[in-house]
């Protein structure tokens, strides 16, 4: 049973996902079938015709409502896992079903079924229809296929890659990690790949079909020194073609995991209290996602529970700060060709030189604000209804050099990686665990740090970003998933080095 909470969280480690989900390797009718740009998969494989969709949509709107949509999904996920030197475990999962939604204003009726035949679909549609109580509403006479760009073209379908080709990747990560340091005592490595095929059909006559790949190579390392143990991990991936997983990728995953574990033996705890914090480039963008991004999702603002609900068009940051949410960056985990309501993906400017310029919208919030959806309507699966969700959220580069930013901090901490973030939308308060970082003393990076939390208030932190460097990069991992309302969706994030005047560091040293 999933707990219902407004709090949102993000997990950036892939290992947890790999072990928590049972999962699949093969399935009927998958190999060598339609590519993303060749529609017709659901009709060919499961007999989903326009006529059937029209009938189900008509049932969904039998009692009225503003619109209805069908979300068909066929997802195949695979994990292969190495433990104690051998790839001796595999999980696979096949998920198939359709979610049927009826929307009336901000009210949603939802039913889903795992059987793609007429009777169960009509039953689910009847459930969805209970949200409305007027006369029937008409369904569009003709469906027009959406023609989106493809932001994750594949040379080869992942499910066509034989298992024998994936096994050496994981084995090589293990062997490389052990070769890098005599301190390494355990390596867990895994490779995850997923192919999600979706078909969205709406009562307004839209029809969109997509194939969304997702994959990552992960390593988790335990090192031991003088009786003490430390653990760290790293992963690379996204919506990649299998050819991405070259020797250099394998080496980087192993090297980063080992270096991140070994450095912790020399780590210190910084003093607790309010100090300047420099956020390093790339993966620390998760903080931007959590502490700021969630508050800009339109549902929280429509319901007036976000602190940003009164800030549209107002200054929320220094002019050096520009933030976007972008579903169009090739091969990133949060990229989508269209969202789960069949709205084309786009690049959405959230903060323009310090001014709040847009929220992230699904169709319900767009209707509320009388604007067009920004293509942020996303859901975990056919079992879930749509919410406004981030895609790839990032801050653009600024004019400073990273060295100048660190020097300006004087004394504080430099955050290289964070995990286990959580934010309270209404207050804007957040907390993050710093998994990798350095002390800043006299304007220079010194000892590594570990096992501390940083806490603050998102809107306040945004205002307190006083310097932004020119070293923008996106996080390169593929295992990050954002949680909201009990639903996890893949997201990307990134940023340049930047200086936050002050955040609370939680430790045991006073």
């Amino acid at each position, binding site marked *: 049973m999933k707990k219902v909470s407004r709090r949102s969280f993000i997990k950036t480690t892939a290992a947890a996902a790999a072990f928590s989900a049972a999962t699949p390797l093969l399935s009927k009718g998958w190999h060598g079938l339609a590519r993303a740009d060749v529609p017709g998969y659901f009709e060919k494989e499961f007999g989903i015709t326009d006529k059937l969709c029209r009938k189900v949509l008509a049932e969904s709107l039998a009692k009225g409502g503003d619109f209805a949509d069908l979300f068909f999904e066929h997802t195949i996920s695979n994990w292969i896992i190495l433990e104690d030197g051998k790839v001796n475990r*595999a999980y696979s999962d096949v998920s198939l079903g359709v979610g049927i939604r009826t929307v009336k204003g901000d009210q949603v009726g939802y039913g889903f079924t795992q059987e793609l035949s007429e009777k169960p679909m009509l039953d689910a549609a009847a459930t969805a229809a209970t949200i409305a109580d007027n006369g029937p509403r008409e369904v569009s006479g003709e469906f027009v296929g959406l023609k989106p760009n493809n932001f994750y073209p594949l040379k080869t379908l992942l499910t066509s890659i034989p298992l024998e080709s994936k096994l050496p990747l994981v084995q090589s990560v293990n062997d490389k990690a052990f070769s890098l340091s005599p301190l390494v005592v355990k390596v867990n490595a895994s490779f995850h790949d997923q192919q999600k095929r979706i078909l969205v059909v709406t009562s307004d006559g839209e029809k969109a079909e997509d194939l969304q790949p997702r994959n990552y190579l992960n390593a988790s390392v335990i090192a031991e020194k003088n009786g003490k143990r430390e653990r760290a991990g790293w992963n690379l991936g996204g919506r990649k073609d299998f050819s991405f997983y070259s020797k250099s990728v394998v080496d980087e995953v192993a090297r980063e995991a080992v270096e991140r574990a070994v450095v912790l033996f020399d780590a210190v705890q910084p003093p607790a209290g309010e100090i300047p914090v420099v956020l390093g480039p790339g993966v620390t963008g998760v903080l931007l996602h959590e502490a700021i991004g969630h508050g800009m999702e339109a549902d929280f603002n429509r319901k007036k529970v976000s602190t940003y609900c009164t800030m549209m068009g107002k200054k929320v940051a220094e002019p050096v700060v520009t933030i976007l949410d972008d579903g169009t960056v090739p091969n990133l985990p949060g990229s989508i060709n269209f969202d789960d309501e069949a709205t084309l993906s786009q690049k959405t400017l959230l903060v323009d030189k310090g001014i709040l310029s847009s929220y992230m919208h699904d169709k319900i919030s767009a209707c509320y604000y009388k604007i067009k959806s920004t293509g942020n309507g996303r859901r975990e699966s056919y079992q879930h209804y749509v919410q406004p969700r981030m895609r790839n959220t990032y801050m653009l580069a600024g004019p400073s050099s990273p060295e100048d930013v660190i020097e300006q901090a004087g004394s504080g901490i430099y955050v290289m990686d964070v995990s286990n973030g959580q934010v309270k939308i209404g207050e804007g308060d957040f907390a993050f*665990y710093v998994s990798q970082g350095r002390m800043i003393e006299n304007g220079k990076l010194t000892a590594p740090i570990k096992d501390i939390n940083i806490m603050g208030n998102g809107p306040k932190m945004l205002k307190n970003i006083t310097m932004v460097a020119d070293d923008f990069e996106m996080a390169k991992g593929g295992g990050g998933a954002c949680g909201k309302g009990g639903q996890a969706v893949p997201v990307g994030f990134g940023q340049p080095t930047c200086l936050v005047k002050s955040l609370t560091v939680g430790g045991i040293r006073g």
Partner: protein
Amino acid sequence: MNKELFDLAAWSVKTAKSSGADESRVHISNQRSVEISYRNRKPENIKEASTRGLSVEIYVDGRYSVQSTSDLRKNAVEEFISKAVLTTKLLAEDPYRTLPEPKYYKGRSDKDLGLVDPEYKNFNPESRHKLVKDIEEACLERGGDKVISVTAEEQDSHVEEVLMASNGFEGYSEATVYVAVASMTAKDEGDRRPSDYSYFVCTDKKEMPDPEQIGAEAAERTLDLLGAKKIKTDKFSIILENRQVSRLFGGFLAAMYGSSIQQKRSFLSDKKGERVGSECFTVLDDPFIKGGLGSQLYDRDGFAAKKRDMIKAGILKEFYVDWYYSQKLGWEPTTGGPSNLVIPPGKRSVKEIMKDLGRGILITGFIGGNSNSTTGDASIGIIGQLFENGEPVQAISEMNIAGNHLKFWQGLAEAANDPWIYSSFRTPSLVFKDVVVSGL
């Protein structure tokens, strides 16, 4: 007993065998669930669905994999299993990966765990809508003019599961689950909009508090957060609210698994029989609590459930060692994970303890943070109330506690008399002395 599920499991085990598997274990689930939420005195979401799933663990030529699917048509399952066996053969051998010895299946209790509410079939759409409306109304009333937004929600489900292994294990379980939630966001100073929620889950509807209590509690918890601020870093006595204990103890629990120990991820690996906390630190694993959310007659390996002392008066007594890691460790297996975890309640109420302590912090929520199962180090953000002279005086936010589990649980001074029954982690509020809480 759902004969259809049982027959499908038996057929799947047989199919695995005929497809070439040496052994197999099949898990089948079937669930019907409903969710209704209200906001602004009208339904916000209505959702209803049935889900089912089959997962099969394949053991072939000393190799192992797990495959799951939601497509339970027999011809689809047949092809699915056949391909799963072929795929498994491509993996590396693992000599430790076998089905458990059947002797561990024996001795299973036939107790009625009371997990199915006989009245569930009478919980109709009208009753559901009334419950949610009443929760929302109570929250709106108690929240008064501070309310920005209130959402009330109920979820209920009926779940059936079958577990069957090719070496003789057969098990069936069934449960009903009710969840009720209210959440509120309130107006505060400046731009702050604090929010909190009440959350109850139980297997028997009679255990569910009145909707008025559920709604009012969400409002009161939210109103308690008004004016929250960071205070000066100091050492405090802290009271950890009953429903929050699982989050903190979860960091300790993560190091109690056989997998953590074998993979060198446990700070407790050499601590069995040793002191890991104060005399007050006692944790039982009790799978037989009537209506308990973690109650079970067998675990995921099929081992007959047993009541266990995990930690007794501060001494670590047991680990959670499943069959696979018991083979890797060369240890006797126990069970793969917790059923109901119980910390015995004390005698005094939280109010009495607050009066006695005079000054301290009552922790009512956590935010972010981490616990490192390898080292035992933990750091976690807290939300709660500063109390002085036994009375709450200031809501706090942006504060943090940190330390090592081995030291932290030595500071456990007392358990209150308020066990939280709406979770498989049944714990009262706990009192810790001399904890550094960092803020300004």
